[in-house]
């Protein structure tokens, strides 16, 4: 319940923060929303010697469209994503996702950047960013670099940032016309991590699917794409057959662990069911529904 001792810094700029990270390396942790870090510290599962609070750094929390992308500052609070009219109207998959992260109070502090950087397969944004084919921009001592979301999640709680890099923003390519997306999350109660969740983003030409990306939450050691399920949709007419095939494929390719949320068999079958539901909802939105 009481965290261990640490040294605290509150840099005012991203450069300052990067310098601190360079200096202190592995023993330092970034504090953004703190809604994952602080609970871990209170149980002393995380015992960083240095905590770098980046909440004073300006310019990291806007939601704007630019250059064919939705650009979200890494410090953007989930509540702001949830309340954004722009997101609700043009990025419904993202709106679906922000709404079901933890609970409303946690969302007032939790950040999109933190949700991704924590690299927890149980977090919700990773699957959604995979479905969007997003990219993240990281800043380090050698400047900035863009990382495709497909290359971002390495292992459980491990992302591909260097020890001295910080996420600055997330960039979602604005979907073309005739696109739709949906996030369906099964949770035991509000505030829980997903028993399983599915993010679908697809584009259609008439009734035929021209592109589809599907992300899965909490059914593998890392956030994952259901590529076989995607393949079952792309180029197909999205009727019951294709949708069912995608559900079966997603269930087979995921790798859930048994826990109090469910057995492996149950989680797999859930993935089948909610993949179908997410596809149907995405399709409805693609058709303007």
């Amino acid at each position: 319940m009481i965290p261990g001792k640490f040294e605290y810094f509150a840099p005012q700029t991203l450069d300052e923060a990067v310098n601190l990270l360079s200096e202190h390396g592995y023993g330092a942790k970034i504090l953004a929303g703190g809604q994952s870090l602080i609970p871990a510290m209170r149980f002393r599962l995380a015992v960083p010697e240095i905590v770098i609070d980046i909440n004073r750094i300006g310019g990291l929390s806007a939601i704007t469209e630019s250059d064919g992308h939705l650009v979200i500052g890494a410090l953007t609070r989930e509540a702001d994503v949830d309340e954004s009219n722009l997101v609700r109207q043009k990025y419904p998959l993202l709106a679906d996702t922000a709404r079901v992260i933890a609970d409303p109070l946690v969302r007032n502090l939790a950040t999109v950047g933190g949700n991704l950087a924590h690299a927890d397969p149980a977090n919700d944004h990773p699957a959604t960013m995979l479905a969007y084919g997003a990219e993240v921009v990281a800043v380090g001592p050698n400047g900035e670099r863009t990382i495709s979301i497909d290359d971002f999640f390495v292992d459980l709680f491990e992302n591909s940032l260097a020890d001295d890099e910080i996420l600055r923003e997330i960039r979602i390519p604005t979907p073309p016309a005739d696109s739709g997306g949906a996030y369906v999350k099964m949770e035991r109660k509000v505030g829980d991590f997903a028993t399983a969740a599915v993010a679908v983003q697809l584009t259609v030409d008439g009734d035929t699917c021209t592109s589809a990306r599907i992300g899965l939450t909490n059914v593998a050691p890392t956030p994952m794409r259901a590529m076989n399920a995607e393949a079952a949709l792309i180029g197909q007419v999205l009727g019951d057959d294709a949708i069912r095939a995608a559900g079966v494929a997603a269930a087979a390719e995921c790798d859930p662990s048994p826990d109090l949320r469910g057995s492996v068999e149950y989680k797999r079958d859930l993935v089948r069911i909610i993949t179908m539901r997410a596809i149907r909802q995405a399709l409805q939105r693609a058709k303007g529904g």
Partner: protein
Amino acid sequence: MTEVRVTTPPEISGMGHRMKRKEDPRFLQGAGNYVDDVKLPGMLYLDIVRSPYAHAKILNIDTSQALAVPGVVAVITGKDLEAAGNLHWMPTLMSDTQMVLPTEKVVYYAQEVAAVVATDRYAAADGVELVEVAYEPLPAVVDPHEALKDEVIVRDDKEKKTNHIWHWEAGDQQATDQVFAEAAHVIKQSMYIPRIHVSSIETCGMVAHWDKIKEHLTVYMTSQAPHAHRTVFALVSGLPEQKIRVISPDIGGGFGGKVPVYPGYVCTIVASLVTGKPVKWMEDRSENLQADSFARDYHIEAEMAADADGKITGLRVKTVADHGAADAAANPSKFPAGLYSVVTGSYDLQAAHVAVDGVYTNKPPGGIAYRCSFRVTEAVHLIERMADIMAHDLGEDPADFRMKNFIKPEQFPYQSPTGWTYDSGNYHGALELAMEMVDYEGLRREQAEKRARGELMGIGISSFTEIVGAGPSHTFDILGLKMFDSCEIRIHPTGKAIARFGTKSQGQGHETTYAQIIAEELGIPAGDIQIEEGDTDTAPYGLGTYASRSTPVAGAATAIASRKILDKAKKIAAHLLEASEEDLVWDVNKFHVKGSPDQFKTIQDIAFAAYTNHPPGMEAGLEAVNYYDPPNLTFPFGSYICVVDIDKGTGEVHVRRFVAVDDCGNIINPLIVEGQIHGGLTMGLAPALYEEIVYDENGQNLSGTFMDYLLPTAVETPKWEVGKTITPSPHHPLGAKGIGESATVGAPPAIANAVVDALWHLGVRHVDIPITPEKVWKLLREHGVDE
């Protein structure tokens, strides 16, 4: 009868008024005084080192690194307590024994192993991290059936090396066997009601202050029974009882979890005795969930017999009761299985037999701490599930089946086959009202239509009889203390009053409801009456608040004490009016001379006269005390109807509607009664669908935080619909029965019955709670049902 009786005007606010609570202003403004709010000069903090093993020898405890933490002043171990006068063991409320701190071995995961005392909370936590305990793990026994094999002995401190604690029976075995032999229909069902945890939002804690100059111990404690706790502390510590003061201040929910004496309390008192300073202990949520007293954990084998007309004739129950590492359930001493034998429920049957065996396992001790009226939740779950299975098996509508089998109104007082005398009831009336409120016929039609389309909808009924208000002195005691309760009232010269009680509210609204009873009896406005509970230096002795006993016992004491005052008031009035007592009529708040209503004296006039102009020869003052020994328990009852829709894809159960009709006899405050029912329903929903304490095969608690021990939020909780009937208790001075736990008792089987009702046509007969989506999904897929 569903009209609440109101006989006083709103200015007086006697019984029946929806009076706003008098205690609310401080809670609304953050000015409550909970144990963690108590701060005394020089106060130290205590934190506890806990076992990571369910069963292990303790080879060594090294406290040196902990003692080196700046701010840490002491580390207390079992050996220290032993040296201080055998304080390393303590009695439980069921006359078993329990370790305070171990000297040889630990017997449950998260067991208290050592206590660190420091100048601030943070240093104490640092100290806890640095206490080094060397354990030798032992095999743990987690399943009580395994435990009964006596291969791994939990309590080798006992003379008899066995995990079998006790055997208890009720009812008539021969008569029951006879009835079963002659039965036309017999059904059999195993049920497991898992371990759950009451999880009041405030955890448990204490501030102990040993004043070494006055040689006086003051204890602020999250206690539902401060007097009983004071007596126990006196007996265990040897401190004289008049030198111990227990103050139970504002309590953030109890529900039974603040009745047991936990090792942390004893460590805190010892820490204060040793350091001579006040010491505070406030447990974390994970400690609370993992080590404090649980409830349920009953493994049940039940059989029900019926005749050819579908009348229930008999019930046979065998149960294994998993008590963890000590029998620390706060049951009345003659009832190790509590009031479980009320298991014949609302039905008129011929014979019943119940046999229960208590068993030790390597889990925390307990366990009736969850709003259950001493095992009535288990009993009602059993009978309402069995009645529903029998009804479905016979192809009868579950409502019709119940109506046919209910005890009839003219049969009250009713002698049950297991020896209880039910005071009053109107089971048909309650069920009829519930069916009307929910439009039962319409729902059955809807269900038939949906079933034809392959949709799964269920309707579940629970028609429960509760048994509360423990209890008559001829049968009930806890650790020898009889289960009376008390009220002491003093009227001041200006006509205001103060009243104190042996009970202790943890949110039930006593500051308002007791005032309303006194207002009803004496006509003093409820707003003019100060209500106090919880300070053992000033309150009359009582057994506390749990098992819905406050209204039945202390509420009765309030009425009797009020009536004693009224007797004296009449004498004073006669003196003031220069009339004889026989010529006086009492009217709400005044006596007047028969036939001359303008010749009157108000209770305020009389109160003033009690100090300034009382009759010669009479003692001054206007006060009374009553210790009430109830002649019987009371039997609130109700009928609940639950409607569920089941998601064939995910197995999720959605409670679409829940109608609850409750009968608690005469009502003191309908607003508060509604609140008790809503809260109770939610604490019935939660175990039905969400809550379960889960252990792995090594006895490690897997659900030890709110991340995995799931309490419903406002989103999961349905909009409860409540109704009432009013059937007064004939033996209670106010005709009131109590309501606190009815809904927790009645709700789970309504939900379970609804789920099984939805799935019965597929061949499903029973599902154990909690009914998780996976359990339902498994049944659906096994029976060939998919989205």
